[in-house]
Structures are given as structure tokens and as C-alpha cells.
């Protein structure tokens, strides 16, 4: 019907024809190679069952669920404040960003709005978790295709960002800092200046990554033209975040569907790349990390003074209704569809995670690629297992 099934069909027919041709001469049956569940490239427990013809992938089928924790069910037996502690653990690398859409959805139902100071600090922490998350990707992508050093740089510099997050929230990975109606606490003294110097360091880190990987001819040879996802396919699969923007689709929820954070009050831009290949995805994320440091710098300059909590009752009961709020998380569009019945806890929560959609394109994009490219594509799609399995 669309380009998708055409391509699927052609690949299938070609594979069958190749099989038939070879089988006449000698029996070289396809080999099934399980990449994962325990495999360095799947950072987590994702399994990709590949049917290989030589080193070429005929069919790749991701199999997951090894980490399925049933968060949608668990949320149903918890109160709203208890849910945020769970939600932290979905995309554990950018966990503050996970809380925000959930809290915003609950706030929308309660018709509460956080005071401006809380929104600015939320935006800063959101962008900090984006930097922490993407910094790890920038290094990890190197290790996926064999460069050992970038990932150590990434861990080194990500730690600085995590320290800043920890100084405010008390948690490196699981901040649990967002509250319905505002934030748990205000920022401590001296934090703004520290964060500014960390942002300078992060820009140096981005430059290093540019020299180490982006400019490296071997890296380009490995990534350019590998795993090309055209824009219409990306949209159909619901890809989001840098994966979508690397396919030339100019869509960023921070700009296009700002649910009420401070992004529209500062000057920044959305980066896109027309190629849609692994290199484009890396490049877009690199630029986004840089952009995020600039966003944080601007936000730090203009934090409004005032309270950090709106007036909300002590025991939070969310009025009956439904709301879907999604934000542009480090990995892409993360949204929560909350159905409330006026109870202490949500009646049903549907968690729309970016990695789930991002990784669902794998069977399409991995037809006919080589085994090393499987790793490149997996790395460049950038998923977090907790974000797929929830």
C-alpha cells in the first residue's frame, strides 16, 4: 500500500530468490543469530532475533518483555504522588523529564498551574536531564561501533550534570522532585553559578565528541547511509525525538505543543537533518545537546522570583476526567494518558514511551543490513530498555 510494504515485499522476494538460487548449488540454510537478551549492544535485555544470510540480515525481529514491570498496572494501585516515584524509573537516564508530563497531565485535570519560578526550574532540570541522557548516547554510540574512549568521556562529563541534578533534587537518577502544583524544594544557594560552569564543560565535551567521532572518517563510513529512515516512514511508525528530526521532519513538542514550561520564553532552535541515517541521528543529538546547554544558560539568567508551589490540597484528589500530555523528552515524545475518576490515584494510565515506537521500526529498517550495521542502527535509534518495556 505504502512505500513500506513495497519495500518489505521486495526485500522478501529478493531474499527468497537468493535462497532458492543458492540452495540449488549447495545447502547454505540461513542462520538464526540471537543478539541478546544479554548482549553489550542492547544495553539492557532486548533480544533481536536475526535471520542471517552470511552476515546479511534477512529478517530481524525484536523480542522484548524481559524487563516488563507493568507500570501501567502498578500506577492503578498507587496515589498520584506515589506514581511519580515509579515514573522516574521508566527512562532511567533522563528521569526528571519523565515526571514532567505526568505531573502536567494531573495539573491539567486539577486545573492548577505551577507558579512561574517552579516552571522555570522544571525546565532547567528537564534540559539538564536531557543533557545527561544525550551525553551518554554521544559516548555510547562510539563504543557501539568500536571506539573505546568516547564513552569514558561521556561518563566523566555526565557525572557533572548528574551532580547538579543531585544537588537540587537529592537523587542522581531518581529525583522525584516534581509535585502536582510545583516543586518539592527550591534551588540551593550557589547552584546557578555551578551549573553555568558545568554547561561550559559540556560544550567542551560536545566539541571533543565532534573531533573524536563526528569528524572521524571511520565513524562516517560506518554511519552514513546506514539505517536510512525516510520521513514518511518515521511519521507512520510514530518515531519521535531526534530520530524523527534526523529524518527531516521539523517537529519538536517543546516548540510545537508547549504544555506550559518556559521554552517559549527563550531563544533557541530545533535542529533537523535531511538524511535520516545513523549519522544524521547522531549529529542531531549532538546539536541538541549543545542547544540544551544554551537553553539552560538562558534559563539560569532569568529565573523569576516567587513561590515554587501553587495552592493544592494536602491530600491530592484529581477530578474525574481524561488528559493526555506529552513532552519532548530526551528520547522523544513521552506522554501520559491519565483517566481519573476523582480518586486518590489514577484509574488508568497509558504510558506512551518514545523508545517503544522508536524501536518498532527495527524490523523495517534492518532488512538487508550487515550484522555490524545492526549494532550501529540500534545504537543510533537510542533506546532505554525501561522505556520500551515500562
Amino acid at each position: 500500500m505504502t512505500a513500506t510494504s513495497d519495500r518489505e515485499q521486495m526485500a522478501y522476494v529478493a531474499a527468497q530468490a537468493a535462497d532458492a538460487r543458492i540452495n540449488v548449488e549447495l545447502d547454505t540454510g540461513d542462520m538464526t543469530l540471537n543478539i541478546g537478551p544479554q548482549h553489550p549492544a542492547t544495553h539492557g535485555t532486548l533480544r533481536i532475533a536475526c535471520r542471517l544470510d552470511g552476515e546479511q540480515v534477512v529478517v530481524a525481529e525484536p523480542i522484548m518483555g524481559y524487563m516488563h514491570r507493568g507500570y501501567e498496572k502498578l500506577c492503578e494501585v498507587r496515589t498520584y504522588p506515589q506514581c511519580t516515584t515509579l515514573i522516574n524509573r521508566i527512562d532511567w537516564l533522563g528521569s526528571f523529564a519523565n515526571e514532567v508530563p505526568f505531573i502536567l497531565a494531573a495539573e491539567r485535570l486539577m486545573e492548577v498551574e505551577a507558579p512561574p519560578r517552579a516552571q522555570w526550574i522544571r525546565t532547567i532540570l528537564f534540559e539538564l536531564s536531557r543533557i545527561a541522557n544525550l551525553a551518554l548516547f554521544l559516548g555510547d554510540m562510539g563504543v557501539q561501533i568500536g571506539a573505546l574512549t568516547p564513552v569514558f568521556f561521556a561518563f566523566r562529563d555526565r557525572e557533572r550534570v548528574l551532580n547538579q541534578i543531585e544537588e537540587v533534587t537529592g537523587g542522581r537518577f531518581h529525583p522525584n522532585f516534581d509535585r502536582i502544583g510545583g516543586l518539592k524544594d527550591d534551588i540551593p544557594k550557589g547552584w546557578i553559578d555551578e551549573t553555568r560552569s558545568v554547561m561550559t564543560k559540556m560544550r567542551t565535551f560536545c566539541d571533543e565528541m565532534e573531533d573524536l567521532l563526528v569528524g572521524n572518517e571511520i565513524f562516517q563510513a560506518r554511519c552514513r547511509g546506514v539505517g536510512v529512515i525516510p520521513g514518511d516512514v518515521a511519521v507512520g511508525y510514530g518515531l519521535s525525538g531526534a530520530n524523527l528530526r534526523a529524518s527531516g521532519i521539523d517537529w519538536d513538542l517543546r516548540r510545537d505543543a508547549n504544555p506550559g514550561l518556559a521554552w517559549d520564553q527563550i531563544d533557541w532552535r530545533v535542529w533537523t537533518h535531511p538524511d535520516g541515517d545513523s549519522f544524521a541521528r547522531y549529529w542531531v543529538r549532538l546539536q541538541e545537546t549543545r542547544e540544551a546547554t544554551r537553553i539552560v544558560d538562558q534559563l539560569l539568567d532569568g529565573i523569576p522570583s516567587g513561590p515554587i508551589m501553587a495552592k493544592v490540597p494536602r491530600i491530592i484528589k484529581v477530578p474525574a476526567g481524561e488528559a493526555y500530555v506529552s513532552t519532548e523528552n530526551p528520547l522523544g515524545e513521552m506522554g501520559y494518558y491519565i483517566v481519573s475518576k476523582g480518586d486518590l490515584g489514577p484509574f488508568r494510565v497509558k504510558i506512551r514511551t518514545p523508545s517503544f515506537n522508536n524501536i518498532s521500526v527495527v524490523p523495517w529498517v534492518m532488512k538487508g543490513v550487515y550484522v555490524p550495521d545492526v549494532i550501529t542502527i540500534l545504537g543510533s535509534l537510542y533506546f532505554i530498555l525501561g522505556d520500551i518495556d515500562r
Partner: protein
Amino acid sequence: MTSLLALPYWQETAIKLGLALAVIPATSLILVYLFLFKMMAFMQSRLGPNDTGPYGSLQLIAEAIKFLQKEDIHPAQADRRVFRMAPVVVLASTFLLYVVLPAGPDAVVQNLDTGVFYAMAVSSLSVLGILMAGWASANKYALLGGLRAAGQLIAYELPLILAVMGVVVQAETLNLQGIVEAQATGEIFGFGAIGNPFILTQFLAFLIFMIAAQAELTQTPFDMPVAETELVGGFHVEYTGFRFLLFFMAEFGTAFAFSALAAVMFLGGWWIPGFDVHDNVLNILGPGVMLAKILLIAFFIFWIRFTYPRLREDQLQKFAWKVLIPLALANIVLTGIFKVVF
């Protein structure tokens, strides 16, 4: 050729054998400690091992002891005999390489007339071991790794040999001692104080040799047979304990040997400017000079290893056949022309 000590043949052989047996673990010890542990750590803003012994220098010994203590495991489906033999074959190829490496006028295990030819021949033996390991492990990753290794090592054997041919043509000998001598006595446009290290006249060959050696040693950017993130270790994925240790030793022992070959063929080997090539003192000083040169070359090998990502198998083959081999052939032709003209 004067001898350092006049010893009966068997005593001399025993000493040389003992030395060779001690040297290989020692070389991997040095390389691993200096480069894998310390240099890599510094390049990544860390300290590396620093608890075991002074500055962590005994770390590898501790790890070797740990490896020796481990249970000897075979995969259930493995072809046991081949599985056990593979690391030995790989290590044997490394040992054989050391036979011809000279460290002084007489400090060589066996001064073969066809030293270069011999070295190239035995170094490719390791392919056999790797292929055996890959096949016998009964593991798909290992099999893929083994096949990749075979394809890669065969592809890079050719540029390696062709690069060496330039040196051989210029030195007019296949004997490694002869090549050192040729560099020591050679002169560049009448200036002979530092001899004529072939890196100056054979720079292209040197580059090709180093790239091919990098591939031959399966170091990044050519480490597809091991490829931790794709093949989870490739051909040695099923090996643990002392069998893995053998692979590990062979890897670094071979790296040392290839650095030594490069030092002999391109950097003037053990000769020190100002000494006579047959001076007995060089038997004492030569090993030190060699070690310094070897470490210099190994530094580059490992520097590249820690910095670059890895290529894909087809890109590597393309690079070998379409770039390196034509270049190496051109180098031989040029060397031949210059040889005739001058």
C-alpha cells in the same frame, strides 16, 4: 660473526629457548601494563589499576593467577580437541615469530637467511588457530568472528608482505640482520651518521606495514573478529581461564613481535649510530635500543586502538584490496626504479 660467549651448541640453544619462553609473557606484561592499563586510563581521565604493587604494576600478574585458578570449561557442543588446541596454535605462531627477531649482532635465537620470509609465513599461522577456535566453540558469534578473522588476516597478509618487499629490495637481503646492517651502513645523499633508517626512504611501505599490522593484530579500527559490541568477543567468546590467557598473551606477544619487526625493518633495529655494526657492546645495548623502538611503535598501535571506531568487514576488505595493495605494488615498482637509477 663473532660470538658473545663460546658455548656448546646445546647450551646456547637452551639459553635462547629459556629466554624466548620468558620473553613472551614479559612482553605482553609490559605492553598490557604500559598501554592497555595505564595509557588507556590516562586517555580516559582515569588512573587505571593502582592497588596491586607499585602503581598497579603487578595487576596483570594477579590477573594471570586469577585466570589460572579458573575452571576449565568447554561448551557442551564444542569439538573438544580442536577447542583445546586452538589457543596453543595461536601462541605457537607468536613463539615462532620470536625466533628471528634480532636484538643485537648475535642476540638472536636463529639468524635465518630468509628471516623476513619466515616471519611473514609463521605470523599467518595464527589464522589457523583463530579459525579453529571459532569453529570448535560451537557458538555462532565465535564462528562469525573466526570467519571474519580468516577473511581479514588473509586480506592483510598481502599488503603486509608487499610492503616488506620494498624494504627487501632496498636492503637486497631477506635476512633481518642483513636489513639492520643495510640500514646501519647506508647513507642518505652522502650523510651516513645516522645510517639510513628505511622509514625515510620507505615511508609509504612503513605506513602500509603499520596499517596491515594493525589489521593482522586485530586491533581497532580492524578488530572485527573480536568486536566486543557486536560479536561479544568473537572467536574467543567461549574461552575462559588459562585458555583465554593464552589468547591474551598471544595477542600482545604478537603486537610486540610486529613492533619489533617494524623497528628492525624501518627504524634501524638494534644499531646505535656511532658504533660498528659488529661491535660486541651492541649485544648488551641492542636489546635496550630495540625495546625503546618497539615501545615507540607499540605506542602508536595502541594510541590508534584507543581512539578510533572500528570499520565494517566489507569496508575493510575494500580498503585492503583497492587501496593498500595497489599502493604497496606501486611502492615496489618505485623502489625498483630508484634501486636501478641510484
